């Protein structure tokens, strides 16, 4: 789960990482109060989860109250679904650094990435100037050692006053990475101010989904999702992505569902939603179909080839869903795997015409969208 900037910065501050002074504001009135506290110049930072906020015009520097309130008004009513603004003091920046902690799947360690050239996308820098990136592998069991943090810090700054602050920030950032079971803990940019202070200018913290059962600080609310449907599906534990095409996918297995998604695109069809009801969800056919039917799709395409998720149980679930929900659009079903003979029998009895071949099923679904049958 990716956190909002203000949440990441709170976690950073709790661990001892300095940040510019800031106040969170949910309304224009609150922005007015925040400005009174923070003073000018300050920055209005839209709290959204998408990257590239600067380029999208979602971060504004303001110097007067009238300007601030007008800009706040515009940000709140923009198409980017801005619920809150972080009103933050503008600091005098002399340069920007990059630091992050992530997992290295090959070495099976934590990995610190750092660069004296911060502020840009690290992937971009890795392409253009790979020699400017410092990499330090950290034993996941024993954690970051002081000498490692010191070595990175003195490579990022030759000024001992600055380097000492950076070293402390690195130790704290690693603590955040560990404590929050993070996939990524990133500060980009890390400001070096003209007075020689080091502050986290931005904050990114992504918590590992598989660790959410023990990470209870942040509640998963509607704010983290792009649509109501994605939020509802997530609460049910059903993987779901919203698109705006014609075919509702109701498939099983991550790899197979992704492949069906590709095949529809190859055949010139469009996808209304990606939905998996395999794995532990294979008895949730009714709930899955309900979600599909709330879309403005023309066809529901069901493709499975399950092992643990038994074909006969899935077929029964689908027939039950049809009986209860009376779908107002055609269903193309291709259900294979454990006990598939039973599954085919069940589907035929319910009046469906089950297919055996994935690509044939995809072509049929795309064709049905074209003919509007």
């Amino acid at each position, binding site marked *: 789960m990716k956190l909002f900037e203000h949440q990441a910065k709170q976690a950073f501050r709790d661990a001892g990482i300095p940040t510019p002074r800031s106040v969170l504001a949910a309304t224009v009135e609150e922005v007015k109060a925040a400005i009174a506290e923070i003073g000018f110049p300050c920055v209005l930072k839209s709290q959204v989860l998408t990257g590239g906020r600067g380029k999208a015009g979602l971060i504004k520097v303001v110097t007067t109250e009238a300007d601030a309130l007008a800009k706040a008004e515009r940000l709140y009513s923009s198409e980017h679904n801005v619920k809150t603004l972080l009103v933050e003091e503008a600091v005098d920046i002399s340069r920007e650094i990059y630091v992050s902690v992530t*997992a290295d799947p090959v070495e099976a*360690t934590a990995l610190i990435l750092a660069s004296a050239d911060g502020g840009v996308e690290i992937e971009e820098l890795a392409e253009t100037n790979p020699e400017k990136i410092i990499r330090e592998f950290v034993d*996941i069991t024993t954690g970051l050692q002081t000498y490692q943090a010191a070595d990175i810090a003195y490579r990022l700054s030759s000024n001992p006053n600055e380097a000492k602050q950076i070293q402390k920030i690195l130790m704290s950032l690693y603590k955040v990475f560990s404590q929050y*079971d993070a996939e990524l803990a990133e500060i980009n940019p890390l400001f070096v101010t003209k007075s020689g202070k080091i502050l986290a200018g931005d904050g990114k913290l992504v918590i590992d989904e598989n660790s959410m059962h023990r990470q209870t600080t942040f509640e998963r609310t509607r704010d983290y999702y792009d649509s109501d449907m994605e939020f509802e599906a997530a609460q049910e534990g059903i993987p779901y*992505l919203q698109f705006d095409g014609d075919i509702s996918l109701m498939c099983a297995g991550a*790899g*197979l569902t992704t492949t069906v998604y*590709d095949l529809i695109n190859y055949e010139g069809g469009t996808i209304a939603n990606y939905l998996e009801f395999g794995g532990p969800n294979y008895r949730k056919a009714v709930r899955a179909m309900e979600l599909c039917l709330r879309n403005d799709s023309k066809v529901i395409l069901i493709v499975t080839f399950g092992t643990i998720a038994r074909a006969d149980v899935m077929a029964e679930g689908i027939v039950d869903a049809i009986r209860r929900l009376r779908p107002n659009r055609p269903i193309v079903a291709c259900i294979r795997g454990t006990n598939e003979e039973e599954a085919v029998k069940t589907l035929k009895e319910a009046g469906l015409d089950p297919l055996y071949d994935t690509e044939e099923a995809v072509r049929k679904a795309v064709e049905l969208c074209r003919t509007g049958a």
Partner: protein
Amino acid sequence: MSIFITENTRVLVQGITGKEGSFWTKHMIELGTQVVAGVTPGKEGQVVEELPVYHTVRRAVAENDVDAAMLFVPPRFTKDAVFEALDSGIKKIVTIADGIPLHEMLQIRDAAKSCDAMVIGGNTSGCISPGVAMMGMFPYWIERVYKKGRIGIMTRSGSLTNEVTAMVVRAGFGVSSLIGIGGDPVPGTRFAEMLPLYEADDETDALVIIGELGGTMEEEVADAMQTGIFSKPVAAFLGGRTAPKGKRMGHAGAIVTGGRGTVEGKIAALEAAGAVVAERPSMVGDLLKEKLQ
């Protein structure tokens, strides 16, 4: 000989008394796997499929010779169960658990490396050599998928593996050994680390790789082909060619970030190394035929 698991591999099942554990133990034995004992804390003295159950792995290995451990253990207990197997000197471990915390998976892979052991998974169905033995959950009785033959299969996926393997079999081939690496961002063993086993296996003529967007495992296979570590023919199918950037499609490991992990990049690397890459599952069989002529 098949790879990783053969008819002679003596398997201990951790979590044998659970619903999945007992169900798949029965099928592992039916296929021909030598399961020798099981472990479930608190259940010593019970018998599952005529096998003795022990409280701990230490107690099981004290009375049985064990080569491999098959874990039917929930994700949050998996790290402990893997460490327990490693502590008893077991060098081959398969875990099917879906949902192992990321930091624990790093510890598992790190520990396995320092013990010179191999952990397969999590988030996988396991591995199978059709007609010989399996560790995991495979409907081996579906003949149009799990037919014995001479093609090796390595995969990051479950259902997609059934789909693609059915196409390999439809083209007249069969499977020597199938290894499910798993769909997590940090698998215990990576594609490239299995390659020396397939290379040395005289029952494998060619390899099919079923990959997807995200990570660098397919690129590592291409590197191994370039450097001559793997010299047998390779055909690949990769899911997620048209996946939108930045969205997590399905598996936790299946995400493109900052331009890394794209299917285009993987295809380019594999093709440059001499592999053939199928656009659709149905093409894998024919490409394999051409490659083997």
